[in-house]
């Protein structure tokens, strides 16, 4: 009994997730169906990849709100290139976008010392503009090759590739963060920049790497999204940054850096996805859904904070 209580205390969000999950299963009979569960997973996967990348940068104590624009830019660039030059060139472009954007962001934040919110806000506006420029008048670009759509929607055991890709990324990220020197140094950089620097951690490198991981994740998500929808619109993913940040924060990764992990972000994502899915099932309009999502986010984080404050008061 005590063990169960302790588990609930330490894994409050997971418990919330299970409760919402069970509640949803009872309210509508369609919820607990294979199709719906897969549908739910597919829905969270693209922004999920963004959120995992965001987790890295948030752990270092910064964040990146340009991810949505990077997704749109990557989508239109990749589709345009795939139409004329094929997959290889498109993939190179994708990696280049992720790399260059991350490098610019980190340069602005680390060397020019601009706050990461402002630095990436500038990028967010800029890359969106470029995406529109490429497409001329903002008309979505359609892929002319047939296999493109299959990258995301092709299935194995009736589960779309997109879902596999997402979960592989979650697992690899969790592994990197928990087990590797690279991961530890990411945490150290965010935990205390000065201490890490004096301990010989190349803090500039790790912050730059985190920015690059974040924007490369976004670029990849851009490809997967355009593949799933079989179209690349420059207007796409305008809510990606905030959705991803919501998931990261809801999962319990602190914006002040040094804590959090990929699994936490996954739980945060699933809760948000589940709420939307359940509300859709009962037929609640998407406007009310937004209000409910916002309220729940604040509510969960407040509760988490309350327990944290109490724990700190006891321990110090």
């Amino acid at each position, binding site marked *: 009994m005590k063990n169960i209580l302790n588990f609930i205390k330490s894994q409050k969000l997971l418990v919330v997730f299970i409760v919402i999950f069970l509640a949803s299963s009872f309210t509508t009979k369609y919820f607990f169906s294979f199709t719906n569960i897969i549908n739910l997973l597919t829905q969270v996967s693209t922004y999920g990849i963004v959120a995992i990348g965001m987790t890295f940068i948030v752990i270092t104590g910064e964040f990146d709100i340009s991810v949505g624009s990077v997704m749109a830019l990557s989508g239109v660039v990749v589709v345009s290139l795939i139409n004329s030059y094929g997959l290889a060139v498109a993939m190179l472009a994708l990696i280049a976008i992720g790399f260059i954007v991350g490098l610019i962001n980190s340069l602005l934040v680390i060397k020019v010392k601009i706050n990461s919110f402002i630095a990436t806000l500038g990028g967010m506006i800029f890359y969106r503009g470029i995406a529109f420029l490429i497409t001329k008048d903002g008309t979505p670009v359609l892929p002319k090759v047939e296999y493109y759509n299959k990258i995301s929607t092709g299935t194995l055991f009736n589960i779309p590739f997109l879902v596999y890709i997402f979960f592989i990324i979650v697992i690899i990220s969790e592994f990197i963060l928990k*087990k*590797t*020197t*690279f991961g*530890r*140094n990411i945490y*150290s950089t965010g*935990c*205390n920049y*000065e*201490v*890490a*620097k*004096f*301990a*010989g*951690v*190349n803090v500039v490198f790790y912050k730059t790497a985190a920015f690059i991981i974040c924007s490369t994740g976004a670029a990849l998500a851009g490809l997967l999204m355009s593949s799933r929808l079989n179209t690349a619109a420059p207007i796409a993913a305008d809510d990606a940054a905030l959705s991803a940040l919501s998931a990261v924060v809801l999962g319990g990764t602190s914006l002040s850096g*040094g*804590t959090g992990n990929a699994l936490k972000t996954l739980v945060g994502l699933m809760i948000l996805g589940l709420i939307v899915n359940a509300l859709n099932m009962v037929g609640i309009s998407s406007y009310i859904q937004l209000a409910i999502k916002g309220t729940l986010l604040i509510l969960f984080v407040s509760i988490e904070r309350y327990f944290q404050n109490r724990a700190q008061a*006891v*321990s*110090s």
Partner: protein
Amino acid sequence: MAKLDNLLTPRGDTMCDYLLKIQNITKKFPGVVALDDVSLYIKKGEIFGIVGENGAGKSTLMKILYGVYKNDSGQIFLDGKELKNLTPLIAQKMGMSIIFQEFNLLSTLSISENIFVNRLSFKNRIFVNWNVLNKRAEELLESIGYTMDVKRLVSSLSVAEKQMVEIAKALSFNAKLILMDEPSATLTNKELDKLFKVIETLKKQKITIIYISHKLDEIFQICDTTAIFRDGKVVDTKKTSLFTKNEIIQKMVGRTVENEYPARTKINFDEEVLRVNNLAIKNKINDISFSLKKGEILGIVGLVGSGRTELVRAIFGADKKISGDIFINGIKRSIKSPQDAINLKIALLTEDRRGQGLFINYSIEKNISSTIIKKISKRMFINTKLETIIAKKAISDLKIKCTSEKQTMLNLSGGNQQKVVLAKWLVSEPDIFIMDEPTRGIDVGAKYEIYVLMNSLTEKGKSIIFISSEIQEVLAISDRIIVLYGGKINGEFQREEIENDKIMKHAIGQ
């Protein structure tokens, strides 16, 4: 437990003279009794000293008095009134002010804003009268012998100056009782004399002061009464003049301490391990050259602002140099970052433990491994078993008091935190240790352990650059001393010619 009878007999007072009565206070934290039935009776207008090792419960008591923690049991009376449900705000209103070890200043605000934070407008005005505010701030600082531009931002101040602002802030409350938690830890002798003068003035105005310090000389110099804490208990309280220094030390540590400093054996130093030639840092350091020999402890003495911290930061590659060469074992090396320095087997224990020394949210284990994370990894993966083994060994070698290597730093006392900092550098096996204020804010017992450790390191052929504001300890354990003043070397002394006042003269530029 301090018995009431014992307390009263030597002092011969009645209860009603007491400003502050602390009765049977107990405070427990998970796994530790921080205060165990503590009672203290403090007279109006007296300077009441509290001594004790780190973790003895002094700071916990201060925090209870100031309403930061709640006591589990016991009572507190101020001027005969029982204080219940204290918060810092109520404590301030009741006439108590506190100067914490870790400063509570807002670094992006000015000095005067910090002093009058929360009370920026006088006479219930809505608008701030900056002239009046600044003038009052200036007056307060002048009353402790400091002339400063009060419009300066706190972030631009040195540690000593910040402390002065804290003291001025406490004075600004017209407090009846001022609690000072290690106020002298960062002060130079000159600044300390000033502080003592202020304390004497306050005493004349019948203001009561609780003075916590590790430095027994100070206790004897200014405290009327002294209480000794050990393991959360008051082991003795009496007039300071009735104590002897050895008696206090024995009661603090609960054992006999032979000497304050371990003996240092004289060796001939031949082999040069570090040579600094014509080092300069913009606006801080001018043309400094010196060398460090194998097995030597080189003391660096200088007032705050003399450039001593900047000098070692530059050697460690943390700050940019304008010019100058560094030779390690006779080979010219370029040190552009702390990584370069660590690769050349140099370690820097920084002055600011919380800001630069420790990941405060990390476990002990992760802090210790932070300097050797690459060494304990195979390819990309951290060998967490090895990490734990190394941490466990360091904990037992340095006698770090903790529940386990997984404990976070937050709950450790200052002395134990410093031992973790030492441990993290020891495991990186450097040849040259630079220690900037390694004994700051830690107790007699832990200091002695650190001196012993320094001795044993040099016996193993390591070399140490040792910086401290406590001139006594630099004199006691250094083989050679260089004195910095205004960013330049203003004297060098061998062990034989080390004299306290001579060195002080050079440190103040004479």
